[in-house]
């Protein structure tokens, strides 16, 4: 009981840290990492919810798996976009230095 409460609170703290990071960080990679930390926070709360005494509820695990897939897809998409922007900036600055 206390253990999963501890995990839940830690998860929510992680969520908060991530949220702060997304808002405060200037660099896109930092923002992305912060978002992933938020995600991990949510997953921790979910996993803590799965424990009912000695019995483990499988449903939150399935949800965490789905969540991980979504997080990977989202992160990949953001990284691709960031990379595209970066390359675009590099080529333009090489072609026409300003």
């Amino acid at each position, binding site marked *: 009981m206390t253990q999963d409460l501890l995990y*839940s609170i830690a998860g*929510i703290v992680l*969520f908060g840290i991530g*949220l702060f990071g*997304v808002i405060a960080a200037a660099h*896109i990679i930092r*923002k*992305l990492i912060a*978002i992933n930390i*938020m*995600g991990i*926070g*949510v997953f921790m*709360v*979910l996993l803590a*919810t799965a424990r009912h005494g000695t019995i483990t509820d499988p*449903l*939150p695990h399935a*949800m965490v798996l*789905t*969540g991980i897939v*979504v*997080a990977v*897809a*989202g992160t990949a*998409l*953001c990284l691709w*976009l*960031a990379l*595209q*922007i970066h390359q*675009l*900036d590099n080529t*333009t600055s090489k072609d026409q230095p300003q």
Partner: protein
Amino acid sequence: MTHFSIMMLLPMTVGLPLLAAIVSVIINSHRWRTSISTMFATIQTLIVILLLLAIPDADGLYRYTLGGWGAPLGIDLVVDGLSLILLLTTTVLVLVLNLYSIWYFSDVATSTRFWPLWWLLVAGLNAAFIAADAFNIYVALEMIGLAAVALVALTGTRTALVAALRYALVGLLGSLCYLLGVVLLYRAYGTLDLAQLATQTQASPLTGSALCLISVGLVLKTALFPLHFWLPPAHANAPAPVSAALSALVVKASFYLLMRFWLDVLNPTVTGITANFLGVLGAAAILWGSFAAFRTQRLKLLIAYSTVAQLGYLFMLFPLALTGSSPTPLSNAAVTAVTYFIIAHALAKAAMFLAAGNILASCGHDKIDKLQGLVCYQPLALLTFALAGVSLIGLPPSGGFIAKWLLLNAAIENGQWWWVVVMLGGGLLAAAYIGRVINIAFSQASTEKSTGPMKTVPERHSLQVNLAMPGLALAMLAILLGFNAQWILNLLEGSIELHLANAGGVQ
């Protein structure tokens, strides 16, 4: 129990777009891909119409259990009048935008990337409207979000990529807030099924924070006023059909979910103060969005800011439906009004973005100040813009007029006259920013300094007409919605009463 009912076609509304997405990846010919997409869009529309015809026999509510697994573990789909009306709006728009996109994305490379993403977006939208549990809504939201971001980035310009990246971050942030809210709900009630949650929710700190997180996530995705910062660049820099779908449908999906949670699932937790708070933000959105639309220099940005303003009207729902003297019959009036508003705005805004897309394509820019004489070389686009504008301003006899009228009625009957002032003011501001464009478009081009115009006079006339028609059709629909309001009102009222009765009956 019957062996087969038409309602069993329900999962097709998600299955078909997914199939279409896969098929459009596999098929390698532009012609085949577009014809098959049109076929899928037509079938999908027919299915939704069949569902609409069949729903009264199913007592206005139908639940489909995928694979027969059932609520806690399996995926359930649920549909009622409200979600069917939104499904119908989606499919009709998808059909029209589909036709437009065939001509718009004539370039093979872009077309190859567009169609699969497009169908994923449609699948996500349909899934969000019929998902029966809170976690599947999350999956649907992410499907919508990821597909929409990729579609915004399709043009590949730096501004579009930056807008898409910002949109992606906001989308992920919103979904994670939503997901944490859902997790808290699961912790409190041990179920994710919306119907089961609706029977069990009581006001408690845990449920309250869940509602708060879910609302923040969805409001962020709906771009309500202080959180709207990501919307104008994303909607303004996407390709025209994508802008249309984003403004007309994508923001509405998250609003619909917000509606579901506030009016139905988590209703016991909602207080008058929070409902009024959303109303105040909505009012601020109307004023600020209209003002920003008036100030902006680019046509597509103007339309995007107008979306911010129009979304503000939708949030009038919460104070009107959830506070006030006699909530039950009036809340129905507010829900009907807002649903009508969603449809009217979807049609008008999509039409407007398509018109702006044509103007952008023919002039090579969309700077409002340089659109003089537009009426001479893009008359159809301007006509579309003006007709859609009539509906957005809320002039009779358009769909926008009926929607606003219903909303004003609900406000007056509820004794909340202050919203009336804001809504009427918003209408005037809309008239100002739309009038500004029309005024410039009709003015004579100054002969020496005509920078943009006259570049492409009908070199490919048939293509121009093809591109103009879908937008014009949508604008006409937005106007016709006002002429023929009664049947859709009956449909709405009947279905929403059922839907709210379903929520109320379990309390």
